[in-house]
């Protein structure tokens, strides 16, 4: 219990400091806050283009698609806000070119994975989260629907699972840096993989379908939660999703500790 309290206080303090920095450099915040929703606009244009040629996309109406994309955007931005900075820092830290050393992190009496991959917040993503939530509202309001409490619960539960998936994906890509030395392609890959989550899961068949719907279920970011919200998918699937996500999380954690062992902080 004491340990949990310690960790909680540490994260709270970190957040306080990040907010303090925000007020110290507001221009950086506003710049990021205004340019990042651009990509949401780009995707909205694509949705409009697609629906200019059809009114039904795999069972999704235009407003369903807005809800899908809004959910996706909100989760993606949440992951970025909480985990992106630290996960990105890992690149330099693993290579040993950072001033802030991975070695030092291993020394602290706190779980190394927790410490190395979280604790610094990218607050400008807040605008993106708001944009995503706004799109979901827009989609909900423009079409009459019946939604019960259980569906809403399932929706948020799937969002929680999706957050873990997005985190684990970047986490594994960064852990691979212990084994291969490669440039920012890890991050680009992370963003692209998420890209599969922008569309309904039925879009993907065969091998690709298994990959993005089950193995690395990025479709949990948008398609699956919306389908739960609209009651279009059986609750039994939740069990499968939970098992897959838990497996991914523990595998990635094992991989992290295994790589740390092999870790060479060799520098002449």
């Amino acid at each position, binding site marked *: 219990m*004491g*340990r949990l309290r*310690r960790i909680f*206080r*540490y994260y709270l*303090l*970190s957040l306080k*400091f990040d907010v303090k*920095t925000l007020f110290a450099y507001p221009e950086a915040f506003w710049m990021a806050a205004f340019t990042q929703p651009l990509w949401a606009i780009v995707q909205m244009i694509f949705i409009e283009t697609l629906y200019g040629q059809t009114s039904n996309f795999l069972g999704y109406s235009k407003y369903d698609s807005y809800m899908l994309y809004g959910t996706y955007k909100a989760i993606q931005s949440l992951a970025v806000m909480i985990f992106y900075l630290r996960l990105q820092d890992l690149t330099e830290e693993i290579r040993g070119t950072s*001033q*802030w*050393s991975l*070695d*030092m992190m*291993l*020394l*602290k*009496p*706190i779980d*190394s994975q927790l*410490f190395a991959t979280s604790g610094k917040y990218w607050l400008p993503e807040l605008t993106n989260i708001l944009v995503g939530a706004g799109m979901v509202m827009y989609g909900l309001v423009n079409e009459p629907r019946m939604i019960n409490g259980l569906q809403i619960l399932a929706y948020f539960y799937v969002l929680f699972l999706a957050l873990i998936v997005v985190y684990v994906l970047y986490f594994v890509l960064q852990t691979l840096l212990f084994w291969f030395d490669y440039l920012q392609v890890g991050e680009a890959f992370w963003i692209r993989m998420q890209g599969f989550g922008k569309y309904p899961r039925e879009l993907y068949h065969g091998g690709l379908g298994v990959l993005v719907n089950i193995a690395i279920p990025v479709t949990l970011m948008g398609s699956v939660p919306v389908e739960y919200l609209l009651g279009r998918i059986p609750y039994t699937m939740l069990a499968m999703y939970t098992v897959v996500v838990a497996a991914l999380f523990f595998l990635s954690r094992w991989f992290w500790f295994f790589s740390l*062992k092999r*870790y*060479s*902080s*060799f520098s*002449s």
Partner: protein
Amino acid sequence: MAEKTVISVNHLQKYFTVPEKTAGFSASLRSLVHRKYKTVKAVDDVTFSIREGEIVGFLGPNGAGKTTTLKMLTGILYPTNGTVDVLGHIPQKHEKVFQKQISLVMGQKNQLWWDLPATDAFLLNKEIYGISDATYNKAFAELTELLGVAPVLATPVRKLSLGQRMKCELIAALLHEPKILFLDEPTIGLDVATQKRVREFLIKINRERGTTIMLTSHYMEDVEAVSSRVIMINHGHKLYDGTIAKLMATYAKDKYLMVEFSKPVQSTRLAEVGEVVSSRETRATIAVPRKDHAKRAALLLTRFPVENLDIKEMKLEDVILEHFSK
């Protein structure tokens, strides 16, 4: 008075497998398909133990294996072979109980958050180590006063000078009152005044708190000024383990006669007195065996027109250069 052994290292080995760097365009193409690796023996069979309250200097040239050994003592690296025991724990297990009792300060890497003022970074450390408010406030007051950093505490760490940053790193490392403090090249890049300050600080906390200190350096002055015992290491091997005094007595076989003549003397003639280290027209430095130095000095005085004669000890640096750097 038997003091507790806090660090015990037995036949420690660390071998690294490194890819061979290729040079040239065609070699780069080839490396796309087939990579060659080689083994680097960073630490090769090192054994020693350290008792509570000691200050031990780990001395050796760059690439000798000092930093690697330190990293194995703190649990950052896993040994290839051999055992490490620190405070009754195996460092590689990363037990929280163990981690709260040690601290590591590295001269070239930081543990302080870059964007925050030092005080904020200290507070974050406080939460991580679970330091009580009382302990923290006392340690904070003491350490900031000892090192004189009060004026810079509100400045973001990245804006501090190297000296100020090192002082803050030391404070951060000692807030949780560790039993052992490890330092890797702590004075590197610092100006002379700050180096002195840091050395005095280390001696002080060792004396007042009983903190065991182990530091690596390739600066002679760090080791001479601070530690009572020195371990020499090169090419991953331990070459010497003992006090500095004994090192000098064992290896500093010579004393130096620094002589000034009233008339120019040819250096070839001086060879009968001893080994001529340097000579200019009316000045010379001659190395003579320690046992015989009085006799040789007398010889010099009778045979040559000596105006001034000084008898000096060999310096630690010279000893090391002569006996340990091959």
